[in-house]
């Protein structure tokens, strides 16, 4: 498909008749329409969607009539919105025109039923209209709606195309397999009466032979059942493949995360130890403080007492005098005149002289006695202080050791946390694995049952076929019909094998092309994978293993561009089917890319890469671009521009398309 032109009539802000002619030049295949935000770029893209599929992703999309026109509409009168697209598809010129009438009644404007006309120009120049009931089919043949969001690409609403739809049928149709698929359905088989083969079997002359009719009925019933079984087996196998794959993934996750599980347990053990140590530490701190509160005097006085003891030891004043004896006591004895030993104390006596001499060695005449007493006190106080000091020192050392242990454990916990960061708990995977194993068991049982039943039905078909062949081969007419049937069945066999061959080629080739394009657009190291539903995922390689990688919005955009570009590149290729020496061209055809804000969120390098690649792979590129993005794209793409427009915004209700 190549787009020739777009004409808008009163479609949203495009008041009156406005049109664009797109470049269909092979060399200068880019049409660019420049316009800033709110100028109507998205409306242009949605005009394509509305014309093709009667669907427009716009705010208040049920009201498409230009507001100025609506405001001026007289009571009872109506006005039309119309979008017309001219395009070339499979060598035919098509015109698609969708219109919607709006009528003003009681001051309110109501939409009437939208209408669509599709016509094409025949080889003889005559224009033929497509019948109304065929229009939807024709449009979907030109561009399947499932794939339209890839070709009418709204970059800023990229999420809309990332839903997990099965695109297989649309992609195959787009790439030319619909011809084979339709032929297979039409030729059909014996069990389906509304097919070529079914009708040929039905036209056999039974010549009233009830047994032949019954045999044919048996064959058709058995074949029909085999068809159902075949479909069920396919579904069953597809589910088996899915769950086998999932089981393998889960096994890998659980195996790889066995270390995580061990580390998680170790972390929990250490955390418990840390908690116990902190509790013990608090107990020691409390005991230390209690010791200190009750014995701080001992603690602080100990060094002073030691110094006093040392000093007194050096001065040696404690070696004379009787302990606790004072001068006053001796004076009392002298005053009494008689010593406690019984000696008379009179002047001149030797005893009195002794006592008076003793008075020189006792307080207050001498402190030696007091010092001796004091030293004894120091000794006893000192041993108590030693015990207090020792206790506080021991507790402090315990606290220091505990603090060191806690620090080491916390470091280890932090290290483990870093190693297992982001890894989910394994429980949910273990539960899922059990569920997957159960499903696989059930599916295998079902598969075996279906295979047994199919075998039985096949035997039925063979048995009744022999009966039938024997009964109907007698008449000449039947002989001719049987020849036709053999031809039809041979054509059917060939179609089926050709379809399978082409189908398997398409996905592999598409993946190769998408990766080639992705590598040119993306300046990183990732790979694109396409699954059986033609959904695209990005893979990155970590330790020789490919895992699905996260996607930023910018990267998601590049991925989608690569997929679209791969699709259009493959559609351009020639796919041929050989019937004997003659070839039949099954090829699809070139497709355009219509893109709104393609460079939004892309950096300068991606913008430049995308600008270079897209015009090379697509036959036609139509892009609505913001001026700020255009400055990076223009230097790369300038040589490819075949048509250039810009949008001029006169008011919120009126934008105008102007050719540059």
């Amino acid at each position, binding site marked *: 498909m190549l787009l020739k032109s777009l004409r808008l009539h009163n479609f949203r802000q495009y008041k009156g008749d406005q049109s664009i002619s797109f470049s269909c030049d092979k060399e200068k295949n880019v049409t660019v329409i420049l316009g800033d935000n709110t100028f109507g770029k998205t409306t242009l893209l949605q005009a394509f969607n509305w014309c093709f599929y009667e669907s427009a992703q716009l705010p208040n999309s049920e009201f498409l009539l230009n507001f100025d026109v609506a405001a001026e509409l007289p009571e009872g009168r109506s006005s039309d919105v119309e979008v017309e697209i001219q395009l070339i598809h499979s060598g035919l010129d098509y015109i698609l025109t969708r219109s919607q009438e709006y009528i003003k009644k009681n001051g309110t404007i109501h939409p009437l039923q939208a209408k669509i006309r599709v016509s094409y120009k025949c080889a003889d120049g005559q224009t033929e209209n497509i019948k109304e009931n065929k229009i939807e089919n024709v449009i979907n*043949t030109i561009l399947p709606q499932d794939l339209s969001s890839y070709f009418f690409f709204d970059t800023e609403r990229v999420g809309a195309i990332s839903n997990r739809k099965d695109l297989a049928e649309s992609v195959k149709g787009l790439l030319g397999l619909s011809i084979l698929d339709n*032929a297979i359905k039409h030729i059909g088989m014996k069990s389906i009466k509304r097919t070529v083969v079914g009708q040929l079997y039905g036209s056999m002359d039974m010549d009233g032979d009830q047994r032949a009719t019954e045999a044919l009925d048996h064959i058709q019933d058995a074949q029909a059942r085999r068809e159902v079984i075949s479909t069920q087996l396919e579904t069953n196998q597809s589910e088996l493949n899915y769950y086998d794959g999932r089981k393998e993934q889960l096994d890998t996750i659980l195996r790889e995360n066995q270390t995580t599980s061990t580390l998680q347990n170790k972390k929990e053990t250490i955390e418990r130890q840390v908690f116990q140590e902190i509790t013990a530490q608090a107990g020691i701190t409390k005991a230390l403080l209690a010791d200190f509160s009750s014995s701080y005097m001992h603690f602080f006085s100990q060094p002073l007492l030691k110094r006093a003891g040392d000093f007194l030891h050096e001065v040696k004043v404690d070696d004379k005098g009787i302990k606790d004896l004072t001068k006053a006591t001796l004076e009392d004895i002298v005053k009494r005149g008689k010593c406690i030993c019984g000696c008379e104390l009179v002047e001149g006596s030797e005893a009195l002289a002794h006592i008076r001499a003793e008075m020189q060695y006792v307080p207050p005449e001498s402190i030696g006695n007091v010092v001796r007493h004091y030293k004894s006190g120091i000794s006893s106080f000192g041993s108590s202080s030693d015990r207090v000091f020792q206790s506080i020192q021991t507790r402090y050392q315990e606290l220091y050791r505990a603090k060191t242990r806690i620090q080491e454990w916390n470091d280890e916990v932090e290290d483990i946390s870093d190693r297992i960061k982001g890894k989910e708990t394994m429980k949910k995977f273990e539960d899922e694995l059990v569920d997957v194993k159960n499903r696989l068991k059930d599916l295998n049982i079902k598969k075996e049952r279906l295979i047994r039943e199919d075998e039985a039905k096949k035997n039925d078909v063979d048995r009744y076929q022999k009966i039938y062949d024997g009964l109907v081969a007698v008449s000449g007419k039947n002989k001719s019909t049987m020849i*036709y049937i*053999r031809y039809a069945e*041979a054509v059917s066999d060939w179609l089926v094998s050709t379809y399978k061959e082409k189908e398997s080629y398409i996905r592999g080739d598409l993946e190769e092309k998408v990766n080639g394009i992705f590598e040119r657009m993306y300046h990183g190291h990732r790979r694109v994978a396409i699954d059986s539903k033609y959904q695209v995922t990005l893979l990155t390689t970590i330790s020789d293993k490919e895992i699905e990688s996260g996607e930023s919005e910018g990267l998601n955009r590049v991925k989608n561009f690569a997929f679209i570009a791969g699709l259009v590149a493959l559609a351009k290729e020639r796919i041929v089917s050989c019937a004997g020496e003659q070839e039949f061209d099954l090829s699809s055809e070139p497709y355009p890319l219509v893109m709104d804000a393609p460079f939004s969120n892309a950096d300068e390098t991606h913008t430049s890469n995308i600008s270079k690649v897209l015009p090379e792979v697509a036959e036609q590129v139509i892009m609505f671009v913001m001026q700020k993005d255009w400055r990076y794209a223009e230097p790369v793409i300038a040589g490819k521009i075949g048509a250039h427009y810009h949008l001029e915004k006169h008011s919120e209700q009126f934008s105008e398309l102007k050719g540059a």
Partner: protein
Amino acid sequence: MPDTQKAELNEKKLNQMKLEILRLEQSNLKTREKTADAMIDAIKKIVVDEAKKSY
């Protein structure tokens, strides 16, 4: 299909049928002029007419 039956078929006729059927499908895919029943009749006619031909 058993080989004995296959041997009766004329390869030239068979290939001609394949090409004509594909042409017909390709054409109808563009225009959707024919219904499924009309296509079945048309394909059946291609098979019968071609099988009757003598090359």
